[in-house]
């Protein structure tokens, strides 16, 4: 027990030293500006006690409170864990606070895929810990349905900081849908989310994150993943709703041979939204493969789409693709694809393109009888195609609906 105390003290020490450290990317946020306190109203006592409006907001971020087609749910509102339960054998869902109390070994994972002193946001999460989820698939467990997790920001001017730890033990198959949503409030809000993934030998994790923030919310996720031999990590990120400012640059390390990481991102920047979103994969083991695919659509918003692939050994294979579409005169997309090969025999490539909808494509569709508006909407819908993400049908339909409403707005 003394050992754990020492670890905590050391983490706190490092966090305090980094409390003022600016992040490498993104607007520097003054955390002292968020002076809000959790709502004085009582929080729901469980999933079934959620108001219809909250349930609808959660659903729009892919989290279904009826739990239909889900093998478990974690729901946190501000600093309060509302629900944490697995409905499937071999899957554990609980708050990270409970998990750290239950499992001493979890300290071997805590802050191991993300550095506690990476910047002021990681430091804040360590010094102001408010739960987050712990999800673990036991060895060989394969759930038929995805788990869902919802992080809900309810109170005005509050910083919600959570720390999630996900462990897929050897040979397991874990699918998680995380939805982030915000209640409509007058002031601002901030979400800091630390997520650490550990994909063990022969395990597979599919992680889909849907951000449904609002135009007054600032978001700083900090995510790290370690993938062992033959492990697979598939990450989907979807952000279609307005947000004030997001900066995130999740990083996966392919540490085991023949491991795989794939990041798909669909970004939509509304007027005034600033999205600085990237993905990084370090290919550190022979036979590892990575793919980063981003679709960025700016409707008078600003997007920085980053991608970084680092081939440390050979053979490895990695590809990065970023396509940007600008609608509106004030839209701005800055694509920054980076490749770093550190040895002979790496096979790495990238392609990036930023433009507007091609006139000839619109006219082509029109020649088959579609109006100009219908043609543009179809092209935008096609651009934001989520079929490559392999999502459950229900979730796919929800996202399709969100895309359809974006299309209308963009047109």
């Amino acid at each position, binding site marked *: 027990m003394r050992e754990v105390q020492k670890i905590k003290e050391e983490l706190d020490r490092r966090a305090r030293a980094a409390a003022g450290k600016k992040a490498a990317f993104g607007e520097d946020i003054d955390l002292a500006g968020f002076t809000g306190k959790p709502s004085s109203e009582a929080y729901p006592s469980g999933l079934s006690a959620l108001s219809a409006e909250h349930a609808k907001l959660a659903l729009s971020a892919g989290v279904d409170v009826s739990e239909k087609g889900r093998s478990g749910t974690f729901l946190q509102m501000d600093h309060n864990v509302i629900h944490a339960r697995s409905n499937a054998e071999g899957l554990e869902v609980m708050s990270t606070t409970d998990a750290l109390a239950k499992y001493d070994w979890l300290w071997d994972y805590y802050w191991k895929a993300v550095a506690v002193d990476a910047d002021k946001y990681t430091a804040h999460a360590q010094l102001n810990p408010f739960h987050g989820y712990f999800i673990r698939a036991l060895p060989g467990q394969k759930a038929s349905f995805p788990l869902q997790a919802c992080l809900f920001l309810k109170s005005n001017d509050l910083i919600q900081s959570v720390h999630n730890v996900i462990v897929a033990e050897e040979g397991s198959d874990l699918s998680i849908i995380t939805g982030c949503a915000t209640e409509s409030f007058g002031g601002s809000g901030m979400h800091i989310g630390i997520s650490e993934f550990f994909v063990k030998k022969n395990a597979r994790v599919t992680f889909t994150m849907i951000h449904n923030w609002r135009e007054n919310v600032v978001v700083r996720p900090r995510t790290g993943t370690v993938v062992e031999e033959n492990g697979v990590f598939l990450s989907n990120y979807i952000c279609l709703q307005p947000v004030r400012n997001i900066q995130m640059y999740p990083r996966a390390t392919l540490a085991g041979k023949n491991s795989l990481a794939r990041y798909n991102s669909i970004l939509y920047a509304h007027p005034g939204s600033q999205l600085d979103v990237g993905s990084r994969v370090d290919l550190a083991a022979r036979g590892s493969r990575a793919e980063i695919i981003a679709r960025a659509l700016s409707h008078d918003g600003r997007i920085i789409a980053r991608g970084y692939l680092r081939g440390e050994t050979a053979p490895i294979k990695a590809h990065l693709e970023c*396509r940007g579409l600008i609608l509106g005169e004030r839209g701005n997309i800055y694509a920054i694809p980076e490749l770093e090969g550190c040895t002979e025999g790496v096979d790495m490539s990238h392609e990036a393109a930023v433009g507007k909808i*091609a006139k*000839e*494509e619109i*006219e*082509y*569709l*029109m*020649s*088959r*009888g*579609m*109006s*100009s508006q*219908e*043609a543009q909407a*179809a*092209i935008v*819908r*096609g*651009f*934001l*195609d989520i079929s490559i993400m392999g999502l459950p049908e229900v979730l796919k339909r929800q996202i399709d609906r969100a895309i359809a409403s974006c299309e209308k707005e963009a047109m």
Partner: protein
Amino acid sequence: MKEMLLEIKDLHVQIAGREVVSGINLSLRQGDRMVLLGQNGSGKTSLIMAIMGFPSYEVTEGDILFKGKSILGLAIDQRAKLGLGILFQRPPTVRGIKLRQMIEMTSGKKNFDLEKEAGRLAMTEFLGRDLNLGFSGGEMKRSELLQVIAQDPQVVLFDEPESGVDLENIALMGTIIDEFLKKKDRAALIITHTGYILDYVKADLGCVLADKRLHCVQEPRKIIGDIRKYGYDKCVKCRK
């Protein structure tokens, strides 16, 4: 007499201020199939793009009538809805829109049997692919034909339906085109360089586009034979 579908009257077309078609007249009644021949760059594609209403092909004089009414003021999609269809020579790639979706969005027939028609054109496995992305020349043309059949137009403008297509697939496409035109007594304007498609698509009328004008209207195989023998220049001079 069969119904008049398309009339082109003294048509002048410009691209970026340069005249590419100058005073063309032609008409297509129900069941007419006219073959349009001409050297590369002679304005054949420009003519059909202007008929379809592509804004880059500006009509500066003359008129285009569909069933007796001018369509000059109509946008591309309005012309398509009236019953004009086009098979492109080089259609653009449209990422994110699958061939199946395109057909579902634009099919003019309620009872169109997509699986069956795609099967006939050996396009079943392409239905789930992005439109024209990585398609070979032949695949592109079969995809175009499938879309046109689904759209169900009364007048079809074919821009080199056999270019880039192997002989076996020319036979397949030609047979299906002929059958499609026969049904509903459709009219067609067919641009061809080689005339191979005419082994399968019966056409009675042919003409040559040269010097921005149409020359000579007669049996297309005869014209093709003369062009092969004497070349375009001599052929045009002779027919003048």
